[in-house]
């Protein structure tokens, strides 16, 4: 069962990554990227690396998304 | 354990400590902040020399960080070759820093100079780390630190060219480190080690089971270090970055930073990958041809430039290719040539960027065509330029000839005279763009009078030191060549 779940999560990862590449609206891209990071954190949890998963959720998703949003607010939103 | 046993790590750590202290000192006692960095550079240089003497007597020193033995702990390795590179890095950094003391006030705003010292210390520290480390992941971290601080000493000037150039550099270098890390994962997958020594032993075994992993890793490493060191088709970031930066940064980046990555690639090929790898697939052949093309195209691009610093930056692409050529030949003479060129080119290019800096400082000129007649007002500067150009061309009596001599000799030794022709052709191309500048600078009278600002003695002194080193390295080669022979004997 976990195998299937993992496979699904990985598929989501790819979808998110492709979505980030194609979405023209930067804010949406950042949101997609955050979900990418969260899914990544879940996968790492599945792969028995909870410490990494926590850091990814906090830094890789939270802080980076925050920074990106801040940067977009200071520049422009559309690509 | 006495203090001297900790020298390998101290060399790296004192830079980071200095980097943290520097802004503080700059705020509290501005006068001492430069002295702090100078002291640290000198101390590191002293430690490196001490280590070299010790290593020559007692053999390679392996230092385990925090007392953890490899494969889990981080290991630093001090062998003669690394210490040679370290000495070049530290002494050239010290030299450029002395020059920068005066030049920076001209190029930067006053409030960022303290930060510049910080970044400089971080840069030198991370480079020393890259040289000394014996662990792939540690190398990755240090490479990222090096990349960020290198970008930062470009963008600290905060004009639009610098910002744009350093962003380009950052993105491409992120691509480089990405590739590098992927390569590291491949190797880790195959062996479970990150330590160079363990990897080499284990990879020889694993090569039979996971050849594809190892090939992929090797290819990724070529891309990664090729990008960082501006190997020919991956050089696009270099000209903008090196040309727009403040002159001491340009000297540092062109003179030292790119060579560190070439050296790291050398370590990958000769200390990490098993020797059978290079025998099985012609990876060094790829490097060799890219380097051959690089020497030619770097010179051709340089010829087309109108901006002096841009020309020098493009010329670096040609010159770094000589070092890659030394790696590509897979022959000890070629490596001696390549490593000798690391030293020669570090000094020469550093000096040439100093010249460009002095010209900008004194007259504000950047365009090559405006340099006509400048030699009459700035004689020492343009003599330095002439000698630097001669060394780039490889005229006898300069260090450039010696490195070309070794490269050409090894090309003949392995029966590839066509590379001698490439070396000669690129020398000729170099001559074609360096000579007219020198001639015009001295011979023709300028039509419009240029305003000259007197050049500080420190800057002139630095250039004279450069001239002396370039000329002496053309004649008195014994210590360096002996050291290189001795250290390469450990590898071959």
């Amino acid at each position: 069962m976990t195998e299937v779940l993992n496979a699904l999560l990985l598929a989501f990862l790819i979808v998110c990554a492709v979505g980030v590449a194609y979405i023209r609206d930067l804010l949406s891209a950042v949101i997609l990227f955050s979900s990418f990071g969260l899914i990544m954190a879940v996968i790492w949890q599945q792969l028995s690396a909870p410490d990494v998963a926590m850091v990814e959720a906090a830094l890789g998703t939270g802080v980076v998304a925050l920074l990106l949003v801040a940067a977009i607010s200071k520049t422009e939103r559309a690509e | 354990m006495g203090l001297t046993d900790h020298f390998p790590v101290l060399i790296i750590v004192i830079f980071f400590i200095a980097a943290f202290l520097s802004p503080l000192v700059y705020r509290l006692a501005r006068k001492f902040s430069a002295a702090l960095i100078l002291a640290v550079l000198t101390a590191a240089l002293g430690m490196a020399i001490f280590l070299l003497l010790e290593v020559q007597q007692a053999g390679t020193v392996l230092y385990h960080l925090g007392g953890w033995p490899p494969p889990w702990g981080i290991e630093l390795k001090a062998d003669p070759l690394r210490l040679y590179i370290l000495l070049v890095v530290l002494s050239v950094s010290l030299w450029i820093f002395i020059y920068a003391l005066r030049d920076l006030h001209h190029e930067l705003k006053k409030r960022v100079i303290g930060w510049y010292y910080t970044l400089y210390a971080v840069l030198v520290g991370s480079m020393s780390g890259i040289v000394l480390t014996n662990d792939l992941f540690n190398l990755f971290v240090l490479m990222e630190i090096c990349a960020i601080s290198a970008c930062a000493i470009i963008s600290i000037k905060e004009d639009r060219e610098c910002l744009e150039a350093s962003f380009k550099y950052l993105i491409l270098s992120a691509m480089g480190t990405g590739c590098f890390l992927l390569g590291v994962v491949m190797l880790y997958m195959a062996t479970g080690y990150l330590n160079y020594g363990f990897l080499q032993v284990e990879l020889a075994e694993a090569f039979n089971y996971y050849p594809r992993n190892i090939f992929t890793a090797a290819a990724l490493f070529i891309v990664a270090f090729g990008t960082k060191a501006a190997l020919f088709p991956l050089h696009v970031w270099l000209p903008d970055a090196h040309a727009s930066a403040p002159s001491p940064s340009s000297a540092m980046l062109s003179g030292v930073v790119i060579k560190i990555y070439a050296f790291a690639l050398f370590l990958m090929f000769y200390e990490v990958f098993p020797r059978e790898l290079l025998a099985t697939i012609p990876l060094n052949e790829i490097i060799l041809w890219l380097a051959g093309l690089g020497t030619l195209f770097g010179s051709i691009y340089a010829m087309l430039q109108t901006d002096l610093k841009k020309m020098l930056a493009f010329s670096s692409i040609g010159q770094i290719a000589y070092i890659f050529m030394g790696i590509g030949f897979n022959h000890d003479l070629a490596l001696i040539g390549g490593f000798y060129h690391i030293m020669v080119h570090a000094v020469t290019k550093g000096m040439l960027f100093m010249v460009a800096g002095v010209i900008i400082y004194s007259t504000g000129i950047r365009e090559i065509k405006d340099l006509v007649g400048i030699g009459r007002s700035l004689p020492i500067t343009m003599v330095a330029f002439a000698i630097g150009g001669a060394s780039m061309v490889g005229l006898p009596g300069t260090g450039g000839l010696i490195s070309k001599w070794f490269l050409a000799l090894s090309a003949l030794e392995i029966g590839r005279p066509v590379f001698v022709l490439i070396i000669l052709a690129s020398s000729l191309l170099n001559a074609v763009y360096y000579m007219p500048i020198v001639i015009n600078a001295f011979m023709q009278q300028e039509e419009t009078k240029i305003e000259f600002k007197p050049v500080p003695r420190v800057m002139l002194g630095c250039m004279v030191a450069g001239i002396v080193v370039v000329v002496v390295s053309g004649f008195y080669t014994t210590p360096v060549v002996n050291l290189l022979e001795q250290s390469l004997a450990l590898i071959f």
Partner: protein
Amino acid sequence: MEILAGIIDNYYYMVAIILFVIGMYTMLTHSNMIKKVIAMNIMDASVFLMFVAVGYAHGSQAPIITEGNDVLYANPLPGALILTGIVVAVSVTAYALSLIVKIYRHYETCDYDEICEIRSLE
């Protein structure tokens, strides 16, 4: 068939590689600088995924030692390394974004191609 089996066995690695390529492609081809930075993060994350997958053995537990039972643990070393890696990636991102903001002040655009155009017009 053998290749297919190989792919199915190593699907974590394959996904990581696919993500790496997507990230690299986006980073190098898109002209928007913020997009480049996001793509850079995707690229880094994919490498970390691969690293974690290397440390994971089938059915292994998180490397938290509990007394008494003799179970298979995942390799803790990659995790430790990735923590460093993530921090480095975040700091690079932060630096890149600050550069972007400054560039935007000078050029009034985040699009790299437009910047090149502006520079070539000068």
